[in-house]
């Protein structure tokens, strides 16, 4: 394939003198020129880089074997085109960036000064967000496991209650549940703090999902495990506690970690009941400064936590699957 293009190039460029000696054109020089042309037409960016790299390599090769290789001019041309291929787009970008629209963007949206001013206030909000997520998660784990155990209990009525709870909760938006719980409890005369109401709403909602994850985990453990434990004289709860659950928990750690990340992000919904978490603070600042930049700060705050967390989940997933 490469050889054919090379020949094609040669016949196409028949204007150039073709001395009939044992000299051949350096292929890298040809490649450089092709990429150079490409850089300005169909292959911007990467084409320019390749043109320059191949050009430089060709130059070095030609210098080493001056008698046998030619194509120095082609290489020069390729490098020049490559450089143009990089410089011209940059100039265009520069022109665009200096336009009014872009300047407005930097002023209203990515205003570094406002970003810097916003960060301390936002970071304190981030702490509230983390606290919300951690406190809720602890409640969710206990309550979710409890619901899962009821869901698989032998008593029909209990099983039905758990099933209804799980389905009803999963069938409604979390946002709606937050409103219902916060205002509903208010009418019942229960004056919970916004933070507590938030934790309660998140717990009730997420426990339904995590109960199903726990149930799937428990049911994935072979029933021979329960039988073996029962046969040794251990009661149902003891068998669950010492034999089935330890195995099930290992299996559900990856899906539960993903739920935790989702939970962390969903704490933003509590802004609707003015819990001073990071998104709520971002909104406040946005109004206060009449500028959208604080939201960029909020985005940064979430990513500081979620990006490393996703890595950790991946790592845990990998190491668990290795030992399974």
């Amino acid at each position: 394939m490469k050889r054919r293009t090379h020949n094609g190039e040669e016949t196409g460029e028949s204007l150039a003198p073709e001395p009939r000696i044992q000299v051949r054109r350096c292929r890298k020089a040809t490649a450089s020129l092709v990429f150079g042309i490409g850089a300005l037409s169909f292959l911007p960016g990467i084409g320019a880089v390749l043109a320059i790299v191949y050009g430089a390599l060709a130059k070095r090769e030609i210098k080493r074997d001056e008698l046998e290789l030619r194509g120095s001019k082609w290489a020069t041309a390729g490098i020049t085109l490559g450089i143009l291929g990089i410089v011209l787009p940059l100039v265009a970008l520069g022109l665009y960036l200096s336009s009014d629209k872009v300047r407005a963007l930097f002023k209203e949206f990515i205003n570094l000064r406002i970003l810097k001013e916003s960060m301390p206030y936002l970071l304190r909000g981030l702490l509230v967000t983390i606290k919300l997520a951690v406190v809720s998660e602890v409640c969710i784990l206990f309550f979710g496991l409890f619901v899962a155990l009821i869901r698989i209990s032998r008593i029909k009525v209990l099983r039905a209650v758990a099933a209804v709870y799980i389905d009803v909760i999963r069938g409604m938006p979390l946002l709606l549940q937050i409103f219902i719980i916060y205002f509903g409890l208010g009418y019942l005369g229960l004056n919970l703090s916004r933070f507590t109401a938030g934790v309660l709403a998140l717990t009730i909602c997420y426990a339904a999902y995590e109960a199903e994850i726990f149930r799937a985990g428990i049911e994935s453990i072979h029933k021979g495990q329960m039988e073996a434990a029962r046969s040794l004289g251990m009661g149902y709860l003891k068998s669950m506690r010492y034999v089935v659950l330890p195995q099930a928990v290992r299996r559900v750690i990856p899906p539960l970690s993903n739920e935790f990340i989702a939970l962390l992000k969903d704490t933003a919904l509590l802004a609707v009941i003015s819990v001073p978490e990071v998104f709520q603070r971002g909104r406040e600042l946005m109004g206060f400064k009449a500028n959208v930049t604080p939201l960029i700060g909020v985005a940064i705050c979430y990513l500081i936590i979620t990006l490393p967390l996703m890595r950790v989940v991946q790592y845990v997933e990998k190491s668990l699957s290795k030992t399974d």
Partner: protein
Amino acid sequence: MIRIVGLYKLFGEHEVLKGISLHVKPSEVVVVVGPSGSGKSTMLRCINGLEHASAGHIYVEGTDITDPQVDINEVRQKVGIVFQSFNLFPHLTAMHNVTLAPLKVKKMPQDEANEKALQQLDRVGLKYKADAYPAHLSGGQQQRVAIARALAMDPDVMLFDEVTSALDPELVKEVLDTMKGLAQEGMTMVVVTHEMGFAKEVGDRMIFMDEGLIVEEGKPEDVFTNPVHPRTKEFFSKILSHI
């Protein structure tokens, strides 16, 4: 030691056991043979309450375990069972597999439980594997740990449910030898098996079951060499033609 009287078991419409009566005396080794689906395993599982009898009574050391008032967990401590599929706890080492029930059920102190577990592992020749996880043991070793685990509760009876059926042929012997040792120590055993050599050598009495009934019963050699019932004859002739 175990007395089964008129035991029936139904799974839905399907009658698996159709009136089994059996008496197992202390230190007796009863081997149960018969074609698949004849109800051997179901009968065994009824003896420690893993399956509930549909009708009839099962007395273990005088306690009727079909009585709902009976604390089945108490009875199970006296009746050890070993399964075809080992069912070791994969998240625990061999040692912890053996100590778990003594610690949690008998509330035995840790030291005593450990000491006892090592004794039992030694008995099945696996003391040196005490810290290994089940995944790192061969099938035969896993099954021997399962035997040690059952023995750690000091049962008066041991039930074996086709314990060598899931093993590679070369691993069968080590498990059978362990069971033979137990029998020689005077353990009362009910053994569901397809290992005819073992049945003949170790069994005091052989029970042949077919379609939920005990069809024939007697000394292993007699049942084996001189079957009376046509169904038994057919079964053994089929087995023997493969040897």
